[in-house]
């Protein structure tokens, strides 16, 4: 029985660990959602490393069709071969290529399959995969062959909620929402990336980081990956702790929009003027 305990280079919350194990035990795909930069994609890499399994990644683009993941019938190649007579045209199997999903099904040992950013594809995409993910098998009409998974792959699906996923699809999955890590967990995460970071600097930097995140008005809140880049910049730049208390060096690493940088720089010490909640105006 597979039991995922985590891996060295990925810090995960107990709740997420449990959910991964629930999804493995129930043989259901795990959908991972969360703010950008909270390590959704890395989770699959960590599971593969932790369970010592091969990882197969299927990157979804806006033009990806469900069919692409199963198999491809290269008609043009066949036509070309028929025209110029090289190769055995009567054997259709030569022109069938398996897609990522097909490859995962055909694998001799169990694999971890990552379907990355499923929400990028068209709305119908997840629905087209319903049966294939349920039964873990599909049929190739050209050859009359049925590809069935020898070992059900562990399926991890990530979504940035660009689009809502269809209900029937969601019903068959396990869902996990990665919360933004709190300070404690964040310190652990930073420790994995920068093990030699000075404590005082880290504490001060984190304080500033969470302070920036508290602005309601930000168009794009800085995420974990930006924090790690920022800390790297601080270390490389040799910024003393005191400098962080006064101002925010390399703010461009954290905030990527001009309006956001203006907002933080204008604010001074408090959020007060910038966080007046707009919806709580209860006049009546």
């Amino acid at each position, binding site marked *: 029985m597979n039991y995922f305990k985590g891996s060295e280079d990925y810090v995960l919350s107990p709740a997420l660990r*449990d*959910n991964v194990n*629930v999804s493995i035990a129930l043989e259901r795909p795990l959908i991972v959602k969360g703010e950008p930069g909270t390590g959704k994609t890395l989770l699959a890499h960590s599971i593969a490393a932790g369970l010592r399994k091969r990882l197969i990644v299927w990157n979804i683009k806006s033009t990806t069709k469900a069919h692409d993941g199963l198999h491809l019938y290269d008609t043009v190649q066949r036509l070309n071969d028929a*025209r110029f007579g090289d190769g055995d045209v009567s054997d259709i199997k030569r022109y069938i290529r398996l897609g990522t999903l097909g490859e995962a099904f055909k694998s001799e040992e169990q694999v971890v399959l990552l379907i990355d950013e499923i929400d990028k594809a*068209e709305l119908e995409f997840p629905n087209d995969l319903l049966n294939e993910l349920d039964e873990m098998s599909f049929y190739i009409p050209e050859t009359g062959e049925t590809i069935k998974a020898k070992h059900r792959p562990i399926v991890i699906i990530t979504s940035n909620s660009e689009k809502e996923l269809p209900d029937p699809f969601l019903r068959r999955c396990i869902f996990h929402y990665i919360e933004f890590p709190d300070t404690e967990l964040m310190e652990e995460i930073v420790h994995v990336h920068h093990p030699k970071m000075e404590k005082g600097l880290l504490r001060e930097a984190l304080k500033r980081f969470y302070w920036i995140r508290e602005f309601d008005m930000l168009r794009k809140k800085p995420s974990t990956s930006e924090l790690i880049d920022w800390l790297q910049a601080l270390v490389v730049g040799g910024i003393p702790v005191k400098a962080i208390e006064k101002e925010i060096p390399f703010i461009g690493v954290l905030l990527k929009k001009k309006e956001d940088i203006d907002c933080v720089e204008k604010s001074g010490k408090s959020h007060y003027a910038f966080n007046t909640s707009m919806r709580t105006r209860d006049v009546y």
Partner: protein
Amino acid sequence: MFIDFFFRLKSYGVPVSMHEWITLHRALSLNLNDCSLTRFYHMARSILVKNEIFFDKYDLAFLDTFKEIETTDEMLEEILSGLKKVKELLLTEEEKREMEKLDLDEVLRNFEEQLKAGHYKGHVGGNKAIGTGGRSTQGAWGYNPAGVRIGQGTSRHRRAVQIAEKRSFRNYSSDITLDTRQMKVALSHLRSLLPIGLGERLNLEETVDATCKNAGEIELVWENREKKASKVMLVMDVGGSMTPYAELAGRLFSAASSQISKFKHFYFHNCVYQELWTDIERNKSVSTRELLKSEDNDYKVILVGDAEMAPSELTWVNGAIDYWYRNDTPGIVWLERFRDKFKNIIWLNPLPSRSWEYVQTVRMIRGIFPMFELTLDGLDEGVKYLMSGRCALY
């Protein structure tokens, strides 16, 4: 009690299906939660709830069902808190040796007995019961090599009921304000219902041509499928009572313009008259009459405003709030002209819907346009209405 949880979830509006409920039971029969309520909380949530906007409702239902329950987590927590304030215990070598004789089974048995007898509360020192800094076989920071250590160190795990009580997902609930990202999701519904995408299509005629020119060697010619997108017009109230919402409105704009290819926006103050402004400072303007005449009527129009004004601003000639502004047609007539021109038109109101009934002008404008709250739910409903002409409310 367990089936109650299912119906509680339903009554709080979490969409749970039988399919998922049965999956949960399968998970329970495999004991995936390891008999712990905290793990049950997370497990059940991952199986039953598929969108973070329902996490808060899940928390409420969970609290309702499991608040009174006493769990092993809870007991452990209590023992731990009793063990907190401890000093290291110093023992002589002789005493240490004496204690090393005890074996683990005996210790565990003793531990259970003590638990049953309820000896663990606030016990400090001593040789028998669980407590702090003592020499008994249970407890933390004490000395007994054969002892059972009960979860030394502070725990990051909180028990389930506490987690639910914290309601940390309240902000994800769909009935409160939006950030840019959420708005994008909602507005993308406008887009998602139309067949768009850069799908490639084989251009058959060109292919035949090219192949012939190539002396029979096949040459394929692809073309991009035509992109069809919706046309959206946003008309927004700025200034006056809308000032607090200006930022929110700005976000709506930035979200909208990145989602929709044909996008127009205009501003007004309190009510629409013969001019609409194209900038937020209201310096440049276009004539409303011209706009109504020249634009296609298949625009989806979204008006945003609090619809809160003096009734005279709607109904009077020269009723506009800016005293230098003269309008020879009452605002309400202009609004009706908007409605008559554009079939798909809605009004979004940042005020909470429970207050709408108390404002006369809101009631009047609701008589002209279908009105929705400027929240994720409201936007969703509104977009649905724009696309299909009907929704739950209208």
